[in-house]
């Protein structure tokens, strides 16, 4: 306990104590012994009231304050203050904080540091002097978590680090129902020490890299994506134009994981909007297929929230999509009985002649549907036209009659 001295008295007492401690230790070096040296530091830095009296703002005081508990339980708990704070000669000693380097000759020089120099956070720091992230921004100062703790998916240290990312990248916060919220940190996808800006081809989440990055966990999805039409176009053509398929959108580019699934936010497969979102993503390129799909019971019921009626992926697959003329396609003529049979147990070769994307306006391609609709439209327009006119004329006639009757002063019926 601090004796009930005056504030000035407290200050001089503590400075005296430090002087004594330093005298005992000789100098503040690791060789002088961890406990003794650190106790000397903590004499001041563990005392918030004292620190507050030394600086102008309470924020500065908080920055200088060191809580021995978290420090000792951190992964650096066995280190002395002076191992990081290599430079302090006198009081006060602002350089003690400013000169801390994590990548010293003995620490953190190897992996993952080589990437850091070229990463976007490092470059922003060097080039623009923005408030970009440095080691302490993410890892903390005196409460650095161990690598093992950081690798506990969804663990408290990952959550803490995520909140550090979100403190700058506000828009990228996880939604509470994001499927990754409890299983993967920001760093899980974004390679923290090799982070590149959005749009960079070197980014771990660039279109060409996503199958590898996401595939680190989602192996099956990635494996089938590599050989489906989207994945092949993406990797063989380098996300250039997909001119062969689909025919209606020649300027579209091959989609990658996040084009369909999103990233921030990423509704999970169990999310109520997942199916609707996926159809919307397919429809951005496959417009004609979407339009004709919504002319079918499948499409109409799905649009009204059926959740049971088939949508794109139920027939075409999600990560194994191939054009219908490919023998591996779920919708290849030879595979349709099996594909339709997923829902329609009694599906037979005749049954699968059903057109899931009927174009009733295509007279050449689907004449039966075209003429069926034309007949029904003719019947509809003919009937309503004739009897609509019948109705209007009758109305006018009754009005004329009633005017005439009124003029003659008589009433009818």
């Amino acid at each position, binding site marked *: 306990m601090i004796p009930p001295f005056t504030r000035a008295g407290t200050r001089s007492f503590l400075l005296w104590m430090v002087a004594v401690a330093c005298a005992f230790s000789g100098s503040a070096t690791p060789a002088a012994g961890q406990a003794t040296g650190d106790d000397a530091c903590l004499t001041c830095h563990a005392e918030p009231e004292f620190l507050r009296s030394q600086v102008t703002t309470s924020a500065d005081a908080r920055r200088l304050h060191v809580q021995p508990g978290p420090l000792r339980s951190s992964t650096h708990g066995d280190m002395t203050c002076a191992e990081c704070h290599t430079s302090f000669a006198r009081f006060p000693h602002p350089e003690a904080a400013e000169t801390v380097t994590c990548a010293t000759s003995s620490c953190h020089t190897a992996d993952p540091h080589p990437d850091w120099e070229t990463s976007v956070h490092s470059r922003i720091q060097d080039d623009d002097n923005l408030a970009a992230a440095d080691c302490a921004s993410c890892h903390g100062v005196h409460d650095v978590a161990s690598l093992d703790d950081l690798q506990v998916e969804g663990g408290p240290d990952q959550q803490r680090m995520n909140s550090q990312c979100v403190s700058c990248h506000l828009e990228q916060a996880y939604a509470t129902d994001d499927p990754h919220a409890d299983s993967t940190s920001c760093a899980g996808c974004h390679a923290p020490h090799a982070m590149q800006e959005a749009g960079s081809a070197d980014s771990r989440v660039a279109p060409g890299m996503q199958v590898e990055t996401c595939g680190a966990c989602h192996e099956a999805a990635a494996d089938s994506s590599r050989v489906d039409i989207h994945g092949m176009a993406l990797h063989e053509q380098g996300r250039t134009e997909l001119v062969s398929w689909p025919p209606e959108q020649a300027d579209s580019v091959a989609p990658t994981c996040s084009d369909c699934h999103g990233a921030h936010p990423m509704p999970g497969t169990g999310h109520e909007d997942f199916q609707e979102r996926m159809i919307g993503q397919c429809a951005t390129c496959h417009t004609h297929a979407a339009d004709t799909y919504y002319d*079918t019971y499948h499409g109409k019921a799905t649009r009204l*929230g059926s959740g049971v009626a088939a949508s794109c992926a139920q027939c075409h697959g999600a990560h194994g999509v191939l054009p219908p003329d490919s023998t591996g396609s779920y919708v290849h003529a030879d595979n349709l009985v099996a594909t339709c049979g997923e829902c329609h147990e*009694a599906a037979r070769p005749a049954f699968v002649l059903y057109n899931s994307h009927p174009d009733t306006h295509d007279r050449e391609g689907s004449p039966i549907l075209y003429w069926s609709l034309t007949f*029904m439209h003719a019947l509809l327009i003919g009937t*309503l036209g004739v009897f609509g006119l*019948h109705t209007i004329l*009758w*109305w006018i006639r009754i009005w004329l009659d009633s005017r005439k009757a009124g003029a003659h002063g008589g009433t009818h019926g």
Partner: protein
Amino acid sequence: MADGRMDDGQMSYGEAGTLPAPPGLAEADRVPMDAAQRGNGPFIWRFLTWHRVAHGIVVLTFYTLVLTGLPLRFSCAPFSAGLISLFGGVQSAGLIHRVAATGMVALAVVYVAYLAVRVWKARDTPQRWRWGSDNVIPHPRDAVDFFKQWKYFFTGRDRPQFGRYSYLEKLDFFGAVWGFVIIIASGMMLSFPEFFGAFLPGWLFNVATIFHGEEALLATCFLFVVHFFNVHVRPDKWPLDAVMFHGRATVDYLEEEHPEMMSQITPNLDKPVSRTPIVDHPAPPPTRSQSLVAATFGFILLALGFAILGMILWAFIFC
């Protein structure tokens, strides 16, 4: 009068089922809301209980089918999601649609059986069910009446003298027959795709989808435009004709709407009033509660019909 009626069977002012009196109109000039109760009596039975029940089942199942099917036909319309959720979502609306359809199919089966019995019973008097002006079977005279009616629209003269059923009523009836055949056949296919898909090619389901949706649209528009106008909201019958609800109409009404039939059944006017419906025989006036029920249902159905018509137009703008 115990039931608040005048001797000619017309309801008096202030009773349920009358039009609100415009100010200054003499009480004698006030007319009942129900066109079938206007003019001089006595009342004549026009429809048997069975006809009215059959019509009622058609009405109830039809409205249910339209309200549950419309959101699917116009799934892109802004009202569809709300309407389908009124019925508890797609699955539940689909179930209600199928239950109503079962009622309609059951009615169709019973009706066909009823017609067979009628034809069998009248086998010795084929004039009852063959061509003639006195039954619903189409007759060349209907075509003549149709053209006479257009002539009347333009000249105001020579209004056709309809028999028991005008060509418009025959159109209502056979329109419903055509609609039943198309809707039930396509609807059965779409309800049981696995069963029908076992022996029918899959593209017939595409055809069935087109026929089901477009025929439903035709039936709905026809009933809520043409039928509603001809029967209910025609200015000289406005606002309601409840003859199909309580089964009877005044002699004045029948002379106006079915003059040829009325001239043939005039001798029946001397026969005693029958409480049980006997077609063409004098009937007691509808009771106050019958009038009230008929008017209530009539107006609800009319309002709902016009609302559905509005939704269809709305959907056409959005889809």
